[in-house]
């Protein structure tokens, strides 16, 4: 499978994603510079973390108008798998591919630490390798990961099972103490309604091999590959 990794000025997790796709998952990876107008040769796209355009104006606000983004929107509309991690998630929100917006962490601090995630929906191309209510340990590293949407949108997210990951305690309890940034309903990751676009603040690419101190990110990439093998693009 061929993964396209979109590189914006200021992306800084692109090489980590590339490494995981090629060296850990044994798949083909290709960098796609944000000015490139073509993503059609890819089976899946990853928008990596970082600080695209220096987070100017709002996180992801400028990247969203990069030439490649209209192609990402088309790719997603055709059912292609799109994974946005951290700043990639923020860009997907700004682009309207996912509902809601990010606010500053409630502590106003940049938080870089491992957190626990509860798997809320295993019927997505990104989580089919996981168990319902399984707890994953995945690092976060962000200053603006405080997910917000209005009540109506939250209802829709819940009714359509679009909330895929929530912050929880190591025991799997979703409470305020386990919420690192103040996210509404402890939301750490959501999909679009169709389920082919996932945005998540935690970094699965930073914990996909044991040398990194954890492998809980691995099943997310494995799920994408198995879905592509079975269902195709």
């Amino acid at each position, binding site marked *: 499978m061929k993964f396209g990794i979109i590189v914006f000025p200021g992306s800084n997790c692109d090489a980590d994603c590339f490494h995981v796709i090629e060296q850990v998952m044994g798949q083909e990876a290709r960098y796609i510079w944000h000015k490139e107008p073509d993503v059609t040769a890819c089976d899946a796209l990853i928008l990596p973390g970082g600080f695209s355009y220096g987070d100017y104006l*709002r996180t992801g*606000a400028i990247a969203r108008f990069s030439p490649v983004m209209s192609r990402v929107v088309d790719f997603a509309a055709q059912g292609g798998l799109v994974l946005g991690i951290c700043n990639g998630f923020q860009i997907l*929100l700004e682009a309207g591919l996912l509902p*809601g*917006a990010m606010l*500053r962490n409630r502590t106003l601090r940049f938080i870089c630490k491992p957190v626990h995630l509860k798997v809320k929906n295993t019927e997505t191309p990104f989580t089919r390798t996981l168990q319902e209510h399984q707890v994953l340990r995945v690092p976060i590293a962000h200053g603006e990961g*405080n997910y*917000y949407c209005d009540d109506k949108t939250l209802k829709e997210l819940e009714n359509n099972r679009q909330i895929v990951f929530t912050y929880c305690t190591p025991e799997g309890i979703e409470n305020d103490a386990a919420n690192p940034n*103040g996210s509404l309903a402890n939301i750490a990751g959501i999909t679009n309604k169709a389920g082919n676009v996932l945005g998540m603040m935690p970094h699965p690419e930073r914990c996909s091999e044991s040398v990194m101190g954890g492998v809980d990110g691995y099943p997310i990439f494995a799920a994408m590959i198995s879905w592509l093998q079975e269902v195709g693009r």
Partner: protein
Amino acid sequence: MFKANIYVTLKPGVLDPQGEAVKNSLHVLDYPYVDEVRIGKYIQVWLQGEDREKARRELEEMSDKLLANPVIEDYRVEIAEVDEP
């Protein structure tokens, strides 16, 4: 030529952690009667053109598309005619 002042503010009800922190700091500085602080953005835009209504329409379009995020923010546009930037 026009100069626009665009005020971008968080919608009522949207948490403003920055405003909260500043409010707490003002309390520490002995202004205990400060009830609420909300922080927004002030954006200045200079643009060419003669037609004020057209300028307003386009500034609102710019705000909807890029300058503000309608999910969390409101904005207000003020326009004045100017000679030089």
